[in-house]
């Protein structure tokens, strides 16, 4: 895609958003809004290549490289589907504001995918992050506001880490990705670690790695379904994409970082599931599932950092993973939104079938896109050594856990027929179905031939199926055993798990600090001293007046004249 194409893709949503601000253009813009991603979906198919735009920002470079080409169309497609669903989920009185945020976030998302250097990337990243705030708090409820606050705090923290890290990187190289990645080779280990740490944290917030994920389960459930869909499907991937862009994956072996990232990823994968299982809301469960899935993708980055020579494989797998998870999670969120409403029996059946398919695919079930993605990741592992031995079982475990979590999802979100009077419009369901189908199919098309081949074999199917079955059995066991069921129902984890405790602790600290400051302000010695000094002024004025009076006495004047005259003569003589 050439520069103009990329620009069109990025600017189109912005133009529509701007049109929404003008009263006269508003109706047309409303109709146009869902189609704003269309250029981004289509243009990459026709154009390729990079272009320098020297007048933009600090000298921009736009275009689609391997990553962009793989990610932009599916992402845009997700946005398109979500956008089409917006009128259904967002009331007309708030729709304009929502659409503006939606379109701006979309534009940011496209920009960060089409950017080929740090500053433009950062611009897209920031645009997307800040605009999504509007998506999170759209409902306007206290819960939405709380989630929004959490979200924005994390966003700001993330942005600051990112920009600091980027500055550190930019200070030693040009701002295009390749140069930045290459600069790690020459960087001092300390500096490298700092940059990597900052970027890990900064983008990790977006990607929702364990410990930084708290905002995610808070924000996704409160947002309207289309918003959750893009948040979870498209936007959190930006963190991962950023790592691919800035980490020296495939170029420099950083075994300790690789190990750390892998561990973090696997930890996140497990933690997400464990914290998600007790959740009661479908969208919260899905959010934790996203956390968990992002953990697996983090593992991929870890592999890339530890084994540069394996990177091409890993990257291909990761792209598949991103596309697959993005579209699938998008469809799940949308579906959960639809399922929340009264459904006709047919619709309920359709949704239920879709959910099951999606769950299987997400857990890496046989013949699923998820399996393709996961296999790709496994192929990326080094052929021998500890990694080779340790990681695959863990992946299996993660499949099992994922399956459990999705079972939990199916349990809480199972579409039920209620009344059956109002059914979601067929258009909505059709769109959803298309999205789901794309999610299921696209990985097959994107994945490397080897991986594809590996995924279709019966052994592979079997290997993929048993964790699912195990999970099913486990779930059934829990349901069947009343004790376990009771214990399970007692476990309550608030959405946002540890983050909520953290928040409360910080608030208490702030209150205490505030009280302390108040006390200082009231009894501070500086203020008292100032008051005491002020009280001296009238007294000093009286003294001054009296002295002046003394000086004006004639006796004094006469004496002083003599004194001055005599001393003048003395000093002269």
């Amino acid at each position: 895609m050439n520069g103009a194409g990329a620009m069109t893709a990025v600017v189109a949503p912005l133009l529509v958003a701007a049109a929404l601000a003008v009263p006269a253009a508003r109706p047309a813009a409303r109709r146009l809004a869902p189609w704003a991603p269309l250029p981004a979906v289509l243009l990459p198919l026709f154009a390729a290549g990079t272009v320098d735009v020297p007048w933009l920002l600090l000298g921009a470079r736009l275009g689609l490289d391997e990553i962009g080409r793989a990610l932009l169309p599916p992402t845009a497609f997700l946005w398109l589907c979500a956008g089409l669903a917006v009128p259904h989920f967002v009331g007309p009185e708030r729709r304009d504001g929502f659409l503006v945020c939606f379109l701006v976030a979309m534009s940011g998302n496209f920009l960060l995918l089409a950017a080929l250097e740090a500053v433009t990337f950062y611009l897209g990243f920031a645009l997307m992050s800040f605009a999504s705030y509007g998506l999170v708090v759209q409902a306007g409820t206290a819960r939405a506001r709380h989630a929004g606050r959490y979200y924005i705090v994390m966003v700001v923290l993330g942005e600051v880490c990112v920009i600091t890290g980027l500055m550190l990187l930019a200070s030693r190289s040009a701002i295009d990705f390749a140069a930045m990645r290459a600069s790690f080779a020459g960087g001092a280990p300390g500096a490298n670690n700092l940059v990597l740490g900052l970027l890990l944290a900064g983008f990790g917030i977006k990607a929702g790695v364990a410990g930084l994920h708290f905002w995610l389960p808070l924000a996704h459930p409160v947002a309207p379904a289309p918003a959750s869909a893009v948040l979870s499907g498209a936007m959190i991937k930006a963190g991962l994409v950023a790592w691919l862009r800035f980490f020296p994956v495939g170029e420099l072996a950083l075994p300790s970082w690789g190990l750390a990232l892998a561990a973090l990823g696997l930890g996140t994968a497990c933690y997400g599931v464990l914290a998600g299982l007790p959740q009661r809301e479908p969208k919260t469960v899905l959010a934790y599932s996203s956390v968990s899935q992002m953990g697996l993708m983090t593992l991929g980055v870890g592999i890339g950092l530890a084994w540069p020579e394996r990177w091409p494989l890993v990257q291909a797998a990761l792209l598949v993973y991103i596309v697959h998870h993005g579209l699938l999670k998008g469809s799940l969120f949308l579906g959960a939104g639809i399922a929340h409403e009264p459904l006709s029996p047919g619709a309920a059946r359709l949704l239920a079938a879709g959910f099951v398919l999606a769950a299987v695919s997400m857990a890496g079930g046989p013949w699923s896109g998820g399996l393709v993605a996961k296999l790709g990741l496994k192929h990326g592992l080094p052929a021998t050594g500890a990694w080779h031995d340790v990681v695959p079982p863990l992946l299996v475990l993660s499949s099992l856990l994922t399956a459990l979590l999705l079972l939990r999802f199916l349990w809480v979100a199972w579409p039920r027929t209620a009344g059956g009077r109002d059914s979601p419009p067929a258009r909505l369901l059709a769109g959803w179905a298309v999205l789901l189908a794309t999610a299921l199919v696209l990985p097959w098309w994107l994945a490397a031939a080897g991986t594809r081949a590996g995924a279709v074999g019966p052994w592979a199917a079997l290997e993929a199926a048993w964790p699912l079955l195990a999970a099913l059995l486990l779930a059934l066991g829990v349901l069947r055993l009343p004790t376990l069921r009771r214990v399970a129902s007692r476990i309550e984890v608030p959405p946002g798990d540890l983050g909520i405790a953290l928040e409360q602790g910080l608030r208490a600290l702030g209150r205490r600090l505030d009280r302390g400051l108040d006390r200082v302000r009231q009894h501070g010695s500086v203020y008292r001293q100032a008051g005491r000094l002020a009280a001296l002024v009238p007294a000093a004025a009286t003294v001054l007046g009296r002295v002046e009076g003394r000086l004006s006495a004639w006796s004094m004047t006469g004496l002083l004249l003599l004194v001055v005259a005599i001393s003048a003569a003395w000093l002269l003589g």
Partner: protein
Amino acid sequence: MSSALLYAGAGMGLLLVGVWALVLRAHLLRKVLAINVMGSGAFLLLVGAGAMGGGPVDPVPQAMVITGIVVSISATALALALVLRIAYATGKAALPEDRERDLMDREGR
């Protein structure tokens, strides 16, 4: 020479007496008189000191003194007229010192 010195000495004496009175006496009339006495002293000093060089009588200091006397009379007259007015206006022929100054700060024009 000696008589000139005597004149000069007397002039100096008058000056001292004048300063003494000017400083220590509060009544304005006395102050005016003190100034007058000082003036006379200064004129005496001028003539006396001018004559100490000996030789024929030097008319220049004498002429100066005559001019000085007239000036002094003018000043004295103005001073006395002022004293009179002050006495009329304030009932007191003295300058306000410490206490009255405050009063003046407040209402004076």
